[in-house]
């Protein structure tokens, strides 16, 4: 089993200019590890909709890669998104799934059919061609450069130890920078950063 913090630390180390969308139990840890302008927390947003939000970013910006750090409970809430991603024809979305078999932030309530669902199997069946399944830190670290630099969408399953992450919240006194502003301001800031890099048109 992987440890969430060390697994994400390795991912943060390898990340360069990708857009990164986090949610639920990954949001606070990533915020402490990263602090990049192109980080976005899907917190105060819609449950189960981080991956499809990331897909929208990927379709808007085919010149950039988009990583989303989704939870297994979040994935189950919108499982059809695996098919939507494949159908979209996007080539630049990297879907990391943090699998710990529980709804961690609500007290580790077990997922339906916990331990009996193969998320990599679901991704393969949906049409993902690059599917990875990691149990060990050294395997993840060895593969990450190729995953990030490779062509096409990828599904990256991280089998994690059970965690104890509290509910992440947006608040003005949040120590984690990307959680210290309201969702609309965070979305506006990401849009502005993307506009600085080019590719964003004038307001509609």
């Amino acid at each position, binding site marked *: 089993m992987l440890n969430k913090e060390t697994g994400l630390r390795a991912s943060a180390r390898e990340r360069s200019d990708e857009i990164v969308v986090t949610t639920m139990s990954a949001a606070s840890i990533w915020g402490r590890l990263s602090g990049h302008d192109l980080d976005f927390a899907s917190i105060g947003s819609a449950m189960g909709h981080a991956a499809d939000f990331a897909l929208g970013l990927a*379709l808007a910006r085919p010149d950039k890669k988009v990583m989303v750090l989704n939870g297994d409970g979040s994935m189950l809430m919108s499982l059809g998104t695996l098919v939507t991603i494949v159908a979209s024809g996007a080539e630049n979305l990297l879907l990391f799934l943090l699998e710990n078999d529980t709804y961690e932030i609500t007290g580790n309530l077990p997922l339906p059919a916990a331990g009996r669902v193969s998320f990599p199997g679901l991704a393969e069946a949906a049409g993902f061609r690059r599917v990875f399944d990691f149990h060990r830190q050294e395997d993840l670290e060895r593969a990450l450069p190729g995953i990030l630099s490779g062509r096409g969408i990828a599904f990256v399953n991280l089998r994690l130890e059970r965690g104890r992450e509290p509910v992440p919240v947006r608040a003005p006194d949040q120590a984690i920078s990307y959680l210290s502003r309201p969702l609309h301001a965070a979305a506006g800031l990401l849009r502005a950063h993307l506009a600085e890099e080019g590719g964003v048109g004038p307001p509609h």
Partner: protein
Amino acid sequence: MAAILKDGEEQVLKAESIVAELKRLGVTHAVGLGDTALGRVCELLSADPELKWVPVCREGEAFAVAAGLTVGGKHPVVMIQSTGFLESGDALRGTLVNMKLPVLVLISYRGYAGARRARGAAAETDWTDTAAVFLEPTLAAWGLPFLTLGGDEELARIGEALELARQRSAPAALLLLGGCV
């Protein structure tokens, strides 16, 4: 879905007209799930190299994908049936509303003609489509203003609804009262 009557005249809404108007308004993507009313529009968009059609598996996804597209600098619309809209409450709230994104939501109004007849008779019957009964109260409850579109002569409503969304920095809806031909 049959064409609707307005002042005794049949209104016709052409799919080609909708697509042309969306392009004229600078829309870049249509995200959604088609039904019998929107089917022809979806067919046209699927083959259109300019205005991209992004199909989803469940309507809630359309709001999240449209939010990502907007933050990424594109100009999408959401295109779904009223039943799917009723399914999408938290997705709408958590994305377009909370992010204050002015996205137009085109909703085909399933059961509109039957519900209108029922209202005229001051009573719903066992045969009234509840998808139509619940739509407008739900739009009101979720704070989404709307305009309606019956036929080609009202195509300007698309731009008006888009302008409504822009003015409030939030989504607005346009209800398609009949099917597109």
